[in-house]
């Protein structure tokens, strides 16, 4: 039996979650709280063994993340699962950083809740596939070309682009026509395999093209 403590200010949600958990026959809900403060108080007073706390992130009073941090201080072995209306990867990252072990959007409760609870009970982490993908997406390390592949003019144009200058400003600074600037940009972009201003800027910063500004 997995012992679960529920923290959510909405009674119907609590009831629904309790229903889903208990119908599996593998989980028993040992306590409930409607706020972070109440949860901390209850868990501090009783010595009841709890394996897992399921937290809503938007709580009245202290928010879910602060609550998670304090629960972890109170009971370091307690596993924490967030049940959130927010489905941005950043929230998941923050919650995991605060000591949580799993993160679940409320839109997928009925399908994934039991998987998540079981995974956490086994000592694993749980984050839905799409969130996980979003979390790692912008951390991917791509092999980046060195500035030497560009000519000096192309480098200057990319530098201006990365500095957020308008094409008109770049043209004026390099004493070129706007058409020529566009041509240099095209060439640099195709050499680097990066088409957008954002990507060019990221590259310029990574290879140190903007240093000295």
């Amino acid at each position, binding site marked *: 039996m997995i012992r679960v403590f529920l923290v959510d*200010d*909405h*009674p*119907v*949600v609590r*009831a*629904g*979650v309790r*229903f*889903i958990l208990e119908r599996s026959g593998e989980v028993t809900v040992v306590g409930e709280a409607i706020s972070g403060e109440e949860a901390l108080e209850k868990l501090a007073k009783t010595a009841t063994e709890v394996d897992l706390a399921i937290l809503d992130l*938007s709580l009245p009073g202290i928010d879910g993340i602060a609550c998670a941090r304090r629960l972890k201080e109170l009971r370091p072995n307690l596993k924490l699962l967030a049940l959130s*209306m*927010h489905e*941005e990867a*950043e*929230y998941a990252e*923050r919650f995991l950083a605060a000591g949580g072990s799993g993160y679940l959007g*409320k*839109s997928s*409760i*009925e399908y994934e809740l039991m998987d998540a609870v079981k995974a956490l009970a086994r000592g694993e982490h749980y984050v839905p596939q799409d969130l996980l993908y979003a979390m790692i997406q912008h951390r991917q390390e791509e092999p980046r070309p060195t500035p030497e592949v560009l000519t000096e003019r192309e480098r200057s144009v990319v530098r201006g682009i*990365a*500095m*957020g200058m*308008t*094409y*008109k400003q770049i043209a004026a600074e390099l004493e070129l026509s706007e058409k020529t600037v*566009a041509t240099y940009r095209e060439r640099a972009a195709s050499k680097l395999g990066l*088409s*957008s*201003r*954002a*990507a060019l*800027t*990221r590259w310029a*910063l990574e290879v140190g093209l903007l240093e000295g*500004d």
Partner: protein
Amino acid sequence: MPRRSVSLRAKLLGIVAVTFAIVGGGLWLSAYVILNDQANHALDARIEGLSKSLAGELTDYVLMNDLYTVRRILKRAQQQHPDLAYAYLLSPGGDLLTHTFDGGFPDALLNLGQRERIASEAGPVRQRQVELLGGQAGSLWLGVYENVALDGVRRTLANLALALLLGGLAAALVAGRMTKAFLAPVRGMVAAVESLEKGRRAQVPVPNDELGVLGRALERFSETARRRSLELRTLNLLGQRLNKTLDPQEMLRATLNTLVETRWFSCAEALSPTAEGGSLLRVGCKVPPSECPALRQLQLGRPVEGFQTLEINEEVVLALSGGTASEAFLAAVADYLRNGLERARVHEHIREKELERRRLLQALLRAQEEERGRIAKDLHDQVGQSLTALRLGLEALEPAPPTLHALKRLVETTLSDVRRIGRELRPAALDELGLEAALRRMVQEMAGFAEIESDVFVHCSRPLPPELETVLYRVAQEALTNVVRHARAKHVSVLLKEHNRHVQLVVEDDGTGFDPRRVSESSSGLIGMRERIELVGGELVVESHAGEGTSIYARVPLPVEVRA
């Protein structure tokens, strides 16, 4: 054609020369006539005397027919009187009896007869005939050189001419010197006028004669011109200084400083009949404000004496002392200052209106954001939670009705709609996670929905002030909306970067683009973006050409101190 100019000095010298020539010539001419006349008379008298004395001496010998003695006497007379050119004796019948010619008697003489003057090699000779005994004893003819008698006259005339010439030269020299001295003041005046023309101060010569009148007039004129020029320069300077500022206090200071610096007055004050203490500004005044006579008189409501006062408006009177200036000049100064103050007032009015407008707009936008945030939060927390609860409740229904699945789908769709609407109103992520996360989410969602590739790059070293984040988020949102709606782009890129105390947002797409001159800002939502950006002191630039995509640049200055 310009007339040939002749200098005044040459003219004066010409007058002296002509006068001298006329006087000298007349003098010499009358001397010539008088002397010649006298000489002629003297010559005639001499010939008369000579011939009579010779005739008396000769008559007896002629009667005795002693021609030898007659000749001897004549010869002797010729020796005694060198001017006696010749003498001869004719018989009553006209025959030549004797003569003094050594080389024979020139017959031509007889033919000349009674002619009185005869030209000879040694000069003109005057001939006279004396009858001896009434012609019964013949006649004696004498020729006398005129030269001998007239030479003296000629010498005298030559000397006179020389004296006149020397006198003339001396007079010319003196006249030259004198005209030079006489013309010196004129030259001085010309030089003075020339330097006045160049705007320099000039010393005008004032001699003690009629030229002195001109000199004094010129001096007065020069003084007037100098004052005028100084007045103009002062007004010019004042105008420049007044144009540099829009602060009324600064304008007063500029006016007082200008009047004192240009030395019109040694003390200038701006007094106010209404202000507490009465004194606004003082320049160059030695007396402490509490003892200032002008101020005291003003406070007592008396006309201010001993000062030149200048009423600018109801609140400001200038009291000037330690100098004088013309009424016209002071009126111009007052006009300048009054115009400046009016300009400042109008500008201040416009600025206040603009500030008020901005404050209102800012308050409006803030209220709108707050309201949106509140609605979004309610949607998210209340409606969202309730829908979640509803879904979980449906799950718990026993026994499950046949429509359960459809109902659950409906609740799910509604829930996701509610959440989307809430995010569009105001994403919780913006307040809780910051601009970067909210921006990423928004771009992902909007671009994903329109099936456009997107790329977001954020590079900020510190969190931005929340208000700024909202502005940038809304601008990006508006730009993205345009991209999705109109651009038909394949790719959109969002760059948010802190650089040099500014934060820059660039939203760039590769879509159809547009001609910024042809699309009105109000229709494209640009006006809203620009308004928001300008409210936080930034600027918005749109770069687009038909067929070449669109770039929207927002550049906003960061507050110096940013609290995390």
